[in-house]
């Protein structure tokens, strides 16, 4: 019997063409018109490496780029939209697709890599979100949100720069579907293939970079587990650790 099964297994693999492993986490970068959709080319790969190193999440490290109109979009429930300059407004079909994608289970992380307050990218993002969810304003994500406790216990938002000590987000039916960072998270994550950081932390130390990586891990972990850390079984320990953590 053992031999027969081995044969079946071999047959399956000898016949199969390469198949993408959709069970593993893949974070596609959204391609859009205008501006620069990949100002930190190594950001996603570096975040994936950190996820693989620090957590049990299985990842596909190779980043892929995808358009919102791509029919493969729904194979990836987490997408990353980054930029450092203003971009063209999304077309109505793109807006419709993105709204549908987020409303039915997808998650979007937007990262402003411009390192400027009120940047052109920021204006484009806010314009996009106002069209995407006209009735739901972008709001600060509170400190007791699961994003700040899904893996690491985090006090505030971080990034390569600290323009805003918070994340903003959109929640639909209790689920946060969009998180927006203005602090250049990708810049803090990006590492070259030799293992060196691609960008220096602005007016901060390595602690700030670590906080940025932790925030990235938490955001991904939240998208995969949602409010798991608010289950009653976790609360006593988490609250006790938070109490001690904040008292330091």
């Amino acid at each position: 019997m053992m031999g027969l099964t081995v044969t079946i297994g071999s047959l399956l693999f000898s016949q199969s063409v390469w198949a993408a492993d959709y069970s593993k986490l893949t974070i596609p970068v959204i391609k859009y018109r205008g501006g620069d959709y990949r100002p930190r080319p190594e950001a996603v790969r570096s975040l994936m490496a950190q996820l693989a190193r620090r957590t049990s999440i299985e990842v596909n490290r190779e980043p892929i780029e995808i358009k919102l109109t791509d029919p493969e979009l729904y194979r990836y429930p987490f997408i990353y939209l980054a930029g450092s300059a203003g971009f063209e407004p999304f077309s109505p079909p793109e807006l419709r697709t993105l709204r549908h994608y987020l409303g039915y289970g997808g998650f979007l992380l937007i990262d402003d890599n411009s390192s400027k307050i009120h940047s052109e990218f920021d204006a484009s993002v806010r314009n996009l979100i106002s069209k995407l969810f006209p009735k739901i304003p972008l709001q600060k994500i509170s400190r007791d949100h699961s994003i700040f406790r899904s893996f690491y216990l985090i006090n505030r938002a971080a990034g390569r720069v600290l323009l805003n000590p918070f994340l903003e987000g959109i929640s639909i039916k209790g689920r946060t579907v969009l998180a927006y960072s203005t602090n250049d998270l990708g810049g803090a994550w990006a590492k070259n293939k030799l293992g060196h950081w691609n960008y220096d932390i602005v007016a901060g130390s390595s602690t700030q970079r670590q906080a940025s990586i932790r925030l990235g891990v938490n955001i991904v972990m939240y998208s995969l587990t949602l409010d798991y850390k608010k289950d009653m079984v976790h609360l006593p320990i988490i609250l006790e650790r938070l109490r001690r953590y904040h008292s330091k």
Partner: protein
Amino acid sequence: MNFLIELFGPGLAEYNEWNIQWGPDNIQVIIAVLGVSVPLALWFFWTSLARISSLPRKVFLFGLRVFTFLLLGLLLLQPQLELKKSHSQKNSIVVLLDNSKSMSIKTFPTEEKRMDRVHQTLQANKDYFAGLKNKFNVDTYFVSDQMEPASQVDEPFPARMPNTDYGKVFSALKSNYENKPLAGVFLFTDGADLTHSAGEPSRELVENLAGFKSPIHTFQAGTNESFKDLSIQSLSAPDFGFVHQPVSLTVSLNASAMGNKNIPLVLKEGKKILISKVVEIREGQGDYQVDLQFTPRDLGKKVYSLSVPLFAGESIATNNQRDFQVKVIRDRTRILHLNGRPSWDSRYLREVLVSNPKVDLLSFFILRTLSDDVAAPTSELSLIPFPSNLLFNDYLNSFDMVIFQNFRFESFIDKKLLSNIKTYVQGGGAFLMIGGELSFQGGGYDRTPIEDILPVTMQKALKNYSNEEFKPVVGQKLKHHPILRLEKQEVSNQKIWESLPLLNGLNLGLTAKPKSHVLFGYKMKESLTPVLVTIKTGKGRTAVLATDSSWNWNFRRVGEGGSGRYYEKFWNNVIDWITNTPETRLLRLETDKERYKEGEEVLIRFNVLNEDYTPASGEKLNLTLIKVSGENEKHLLESDQNGDSTFQFLADREGFYSAEIELDRNGETLSDKISFGVSGETAEFDKPLVNASLLKNIAEITGGKYLVLDEAKDLSGYRFENPEVLVQTKRKMFSLWDNWWSYGLLVGFLMVDWWARRKSGLS
């Protein structure tokens, strides 16, 4: 009368009375008019005869006119001859014997039942009643809240009726004897009329009694002296309870003349004591309220028994125990969901479980392994230790279902604890393994107790897991399986399965065990690699889904223009089947009601399905009905084309019944069992005291006498008036005016009058 017989013929011989009846209603007016007008007319007539010199002729003519007027008057008064047949009738005496349940209560110090007192009195006065029967009609009835003739009272009669209401009894008595002469009534009772809490009779009863012209003599059976009783007066228990959740009971106890003692209040299920609580009974305090809580451990209709001890000399034995039924259901299905790593598959399944209001979810994600470098002290992590001992040693049985999703047990669960999962499933639990690299062989489950309970065996392959995309193929033999039922209509259901997005990620090296069901698989050439497989293991059920990509049926389907509805439905079906909800069973037994009343018809119904979940027609099943008495009745039933059959019987006794149905199929026995309660009325024991005041009042209002039957009393002093009563049985009427001879006589008189007047020279 003989004259009439001679006049009207021998047909009148059967009548023994006659009478003249006058017709018009205004007879007095007619007589008055005739009384004035006839003499006046005669006076005028006499004066008109002045020209006739012959006195005899004048007298003759005057006489003729007098007869004519008399005859006319007679016609106006419309006389009729009434012939009657009548005979004398005996007066009735009614004996009313209370046969309500309270008559079975003992009275002290002799400890005789109340009804025994009555019986003794009747026996002691046999001659008296026999003497009464010579002069009267003596009718005996049992009474409660109704009257029924008592044909035989020589033997002690059963006190079985659930209610006493004198108002209804006296109304029925009045109605029955409306046309019969009633000389008097004997009422033998304890006076415990449930409609009267105080001694004073109600206004309705007083009005009712006032209509009786004969005396009602009341005889009080028993007394309240030394009434000793400990009773469960009332019990407040829910009809439904939730498994593993406390059920609260509120019990009211009543103690009368019990002295000072501590008594145990015990709750049992069958012979097993669930809970016991000591109640301090103190002299001078009658009522006690006790709150109890117990936790049902099994699903189904459960019969519980609550009791206090029966002490020597208690008046009522039956109220020391009270049985009740609770339908134990799941409030929510408790699911333990272990995820080996965060993934889209686990995230979307968790969303389904969390959003299902019927699910109580405890989930754990292994967020890091020992080899992961979190680069932070534990105090800066939100991670908690995995409580494997608590989950798999202490609380495993509190879960209805355990899911291992892409979970490798090593490092988290001691291998020894896997045998606890096997025991849990064999005892009725549910276990589901969902695929991924860390499942099956990848999780090290081959040759462990987990492999024993799963529907598949695991063999090492070159690779245990493939990323290949595949289309699940539903096994046609099992297309009616409840897990696969995404739409009610078969055609629609098939279309849905064909339209679901492809899956990717498949665990290899799995072989379906005998007796397992491969619901869908991956078709490679002619063989079907198992993907979704189920099996029954011991009393429990297990299933495997050898892929970690079922989330494609949610998010990818949304991207294709559909919704996640069928993904949700699929998982809810899996939960329903694996937790053995009644709707997913092959054999189901049910009753048409939760509870029945004594004397009600009980309908038991079963439904049987084939192994492929199609209706099993023509199956012969054994139904065993276990009655209150413990007596077993066996019936052989056959299913119809829908797999249904019914059985009816009369629940003639209060208490709890159970029915069990069995089917032997291919060496396996399918069975189902239900219990149901049949309730009798216990109100008679809720107000058990003798009501002497009410009996005195009844006797006083009707002119009767009241007597306490503290021993067999002599009733010979009770005398009744016995006037002769004639009863008319036949009647006939003859008209004395509306016939040919009365009109002929009138015409004859007038003609003779006319002829005589002409002869006398008058016009």
